[in-house]
């Protein structure tokens, strides 16, 4: 096979999705500027979570469905920060640590929380070797139960949440939705680039430069990390458990480390995500995180066994273009059924993940048959 053909084969998945996106954009009535803004905003808020999925794949743990646990840890940080920000006149935040320092505090709280959670995830998944993905998913559901216990039943009487903005009137449990007035868009608005695309300033392209810088910073750190000794060890573990063991690598410990790193990055990703959205759906914000992030990574051309930082970033852009296109096309085809678009988006994510998993398992089964 020539080099060009080999490159094409390797990038078939992102190329395919790019073609679908282009066709959808061409067919829809919305302007290019609308898509550009939508995709920029969505990429800025989702990229970190998608990046958090790279390490477990490199370390051989597959797609980290347990990333919802990282998202929960991030939400704990956000809730604790919002708790000490009062409601001033005209809906403005009042008192407490708010704005960018508030966001930093939320991130700082979520790091130790996510480290402990990630350690527990790693311990559990190491006991489920060969079944890490399904175990991670069930672990996510299980943790969701604990999360609800924490925020629905213990917040108020046991956990000192006193802010009426967060607490339900009866004094137990958090509200379904909490406006994040304390940290909302504090990073985004730090440096926002507004580029007029035509004379007269409209349409306008809005780029949250500061958020993108944070994303790039983490991407660079991740790239550096993969070249360190620990990064090389993780790769060795991911390539072959037994060989790594013979080489004297403490496989169990490295796998747990991989999960801790992923969970912490996921928590930070969720903090950034929420700060951009500006509202916390206390009991739902974390649930879909895993599915959409994983689907995004896969659209970028990653597989269960191979993922790079580039694929994560490319996948985020492509997946969110795709999601926007599907929503718009769904709306244009069936204007009276707004829910259809939502179901189609879910179907899309499920299909992408399901098909990738099937192809991966198919390949594995064939290899196993050939070697036996």
């Amino acid at each position, binding site marked *: 096979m020539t080099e060009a053909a080999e490159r094409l084969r390797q990038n078939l998945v992102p190329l395919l999705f790019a073609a679908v996106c282009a066709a959808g954009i061409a067919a829809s009535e919305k302007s290019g500027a609308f898509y550009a803004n939508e995709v920029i905003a969505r990429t800025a808020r989702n990229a970190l979570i998608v990046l958090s999925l790279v390490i477990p794949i490199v370390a051989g743990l597959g797609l980290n469905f347990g990333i919802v646990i990282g998202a929960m840890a991030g939400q704990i940080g956000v809730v604790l920060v919002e708790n000490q920000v009062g409601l001033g006149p005209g809906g403005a935040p009042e008192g407490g640590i708010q704005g960018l320092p508030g966001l930093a505090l939320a991130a700082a709280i979520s790091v130790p929380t996510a480290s402990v959670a990630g350690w527990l995830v790693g311990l*559990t998944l190491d*006991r*489920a070797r*060969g*079944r890490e*993905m*399904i*175990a991670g*998913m*069930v*672990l996510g*559901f*299980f943790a*969701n*139960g*604990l999360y*609800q*216990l924490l925020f*629905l*039943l213990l917040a*108020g*009487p046991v956990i000192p949440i006193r802010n009426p903005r967060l607490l*339900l009137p*009866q*004094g*137990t*449990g958090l509200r379904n939705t909490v406006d994040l007035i304390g940290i909302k868009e504090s990073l985004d608005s730090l440096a926002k680039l507004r580029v007029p695309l035509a004379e007269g300033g409209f349409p306008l392209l809005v780029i949250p430069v500061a958020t993108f810088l944070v994303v790039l910073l983490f991407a660079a750190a991740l790239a550096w990390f993969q070249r360190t000794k620990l990064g090389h060890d993780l790769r060795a573990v991911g390539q072959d458990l037994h060989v790594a063991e013979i080489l004297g690598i403490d496989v169990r410990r490295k796998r747990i480390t991989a999960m801790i790193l992923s969970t912490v990055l996921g928590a930070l990703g969720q903090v950034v995500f929420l700060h951009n959205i500006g509202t916390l759906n206390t009991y739902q914000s974390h649930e879909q995180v895993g599915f959409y992030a994983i689907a995004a990574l896969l659209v970028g051309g990653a597989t269960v066994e191979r993922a790079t930082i580039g694929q994560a970033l490319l996948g985020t852009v492509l997946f969110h273009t795709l999601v926007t296109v599907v929503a718009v096309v769904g709306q244009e085809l*069936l204007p*009276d*059924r707004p*829910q*259809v678009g939502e*179901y*189609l988006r*879910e*179907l899309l994510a*499920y*299909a992408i*993940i*399901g098909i990738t*998993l*099937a192809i*991966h*398992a*198919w390949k*594995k*089964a064939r290899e*196993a048959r050939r070697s036996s």
Partner: protein
Amino acid sequence: MGDLRGRLGDAVAALGLPRILIFAFLVLTWLVAALATDLPLPGLLRDSIVRTGQNGVLVLALVPMVRAGSGLNFGLPLGIVCGLAGCVLAMERGLAGAPMLAVATLVSLPCAALAGLGYALLLERVRGQEMMVGIYVGFGAVALASVAWLVAPVTSPDLIWPVGGRGVRYLVAVDSAFAVSISVWRPAGIAALVAVWLGACALVALFSRTLAGASLDAAGQNERLALAAGIPVRRLRRLGVILSTVLAAFGIVIFTHGQGLLPLYKAPLLMALPAVAALLLGGATIARASVWNAVVGTFLFQALLASGLPVVNALVHQSAQSAALKDFPEVARLIVANGIILYALTRKG
């Protein structure tokens, strides 16, 4: 005396110590309910039995696939969606009660068999990752069905959106073949529900005694040995998956008649999880399951939820905290069900 002890030992061995402990806990719960709360004990027992009958076939549906060596069927929603399609079709024809149950079953079985065949062919190609792929087959089926419900050209006033809508509405009430209404259960209705469940269990148990059933078990327990004995392993595994999907379709038809509502749209998305948890609670593992595990597991799991949670609620209610704890049952269910599955997935071997 020694004979009695021997027989007792046999009974303990057949049930397994964990299940005896859970049963003892259940009895304790009932005692507490009778003595320390004002909950009516007959009501708790009735709820436990109704919920067992209502969920029993769905749990039973998992058994053939485990026995065939394909693991826990997390793709249960595939069969469930087929069963729901049968229910919608029957109700569109204006049927209710027992005729609706019969027609829905008859319509959904071939549909589920076909879907099960496709599912089986896919699973055959992804040997070793059946559970993970299965969960996505289930998700995909539910998302696809959701779009189908939204655009389905139904006309029956029982199904359609009330005001000038198209498609099936979110909450569709079912005229139960067993109960007078959702809350009014007569003994005859309960007996009929339990009879249908146990009948299905007996059929699956009888199937294990046939040549095909015995070969299926052999294929699941030791593939190489079965192949050496000339058993068509792949075909039998396919049969196991199809049986599981068909039983899931029938299971949801029974479920709707117990619950009195059609679980449309996203409702079936995670229905495999409590079913799997019940089977595991009954003593099954990822590699081994029997009808007996399904029967015992369904009863213990559902009785725990149906009587344990109200009793805890009632006890807490009498103390300080009250209204805020109305969500406790749902949370406890999540933790218990997924905890059980997690335990089974992380066991060595």
